[in-house]
């Protein structure tokens, strides 16, 4: 059974997974010298949004409302990435950016958002995780594992703030960016 303590650990693992995705996006951006388009950036924003639910669960203990926050974020991300898939769905369209393991970033993003929705639905099946949170209102005792998970995600979201500013400057991001506007 999923106890409140197990749920906190599981949500911390979720934060690590989101941090890994945001980090991988940075790595591919730099290594392949491919700048993210506005819809690509919106998908990264959706991953940042997806971190809010697990962060709340880690900080305050698991609650259905926190999982609802995650579901809203995952649906928003799936909507944006699904839209970008449809933009490049016609035969002969090379897609935007490089393909990683046969799929473009937005396709991977769509798959990950759908997986997140399924996982959240599965975790919500375990009622026992919610009992302690509502009975005692005790906040979880956080160790280094949980704190590191949160600050890792926070640092990567902060890194994205800097990245967007360097790429687009104080302006709207171009549809097909080819250079960092704030770099000489």
């Amino acid at each position, binding site marked *: 059974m999923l106890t409140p303590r197990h749920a906190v650990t599981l949500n911390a693992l979720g934060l690590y997974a989101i941090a890994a995705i945001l980090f991988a996006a940075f790595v591919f951006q730099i290594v392949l010298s491919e700048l993210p388009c506005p819809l690509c950036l*919106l998908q990264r924003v959706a991953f*940042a949004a997806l971190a809010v639910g697990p962060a*709340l669960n880690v900080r305050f203990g698991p609650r259905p409302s926190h999982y609802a926050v995650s579901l809203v974020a995952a649906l*928003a991300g799936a*909507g944006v990435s699904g839209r970008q898939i449809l933009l490049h769905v016609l035969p002969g369209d090379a897609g935007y950016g490089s393909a990683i393991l046969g799929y473009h970033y937005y396709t991977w993003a769509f798959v990950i958002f759908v997986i997140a929705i399924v996982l959240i639905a599965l975790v919500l099946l375990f009622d026992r995780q919610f009992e302690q949170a509502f009975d005692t209102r005790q906040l979880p005792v956080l160790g280094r594992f949980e704190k590191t998970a949160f600050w890792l995600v926070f640092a990567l979201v902060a890194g994205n703030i800097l990245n967007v500013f360097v790429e687009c400057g104080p302006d*709207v991001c171009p*549809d097909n960016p080819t250079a960092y506007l704030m770099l000489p």
Partner: protein
Amino acid sequence: MVARADHLTEPRGSVLHETSFRGETIMDQLVLFLLFAATLFVAWNGRRRVAIGLFFLTIALFIADYLHHATDPLTLSF
């Protein structure tokens, strides 16, 4: 800082469309990242209800920004 550009009449692909909206400061994705970073920070500092409120406010701005950027027609033929 997030604004729509309904006034823009230049065709897609023009220099103005691809580079900037002159006379306005639009940092749409930067603002969204900032707001979600603020949401995470507020949540971590014990303000649960504020964090959830901020989350849904930012999601509303996210959807507005998505609609702003989703201007390309989907060339589908079912």
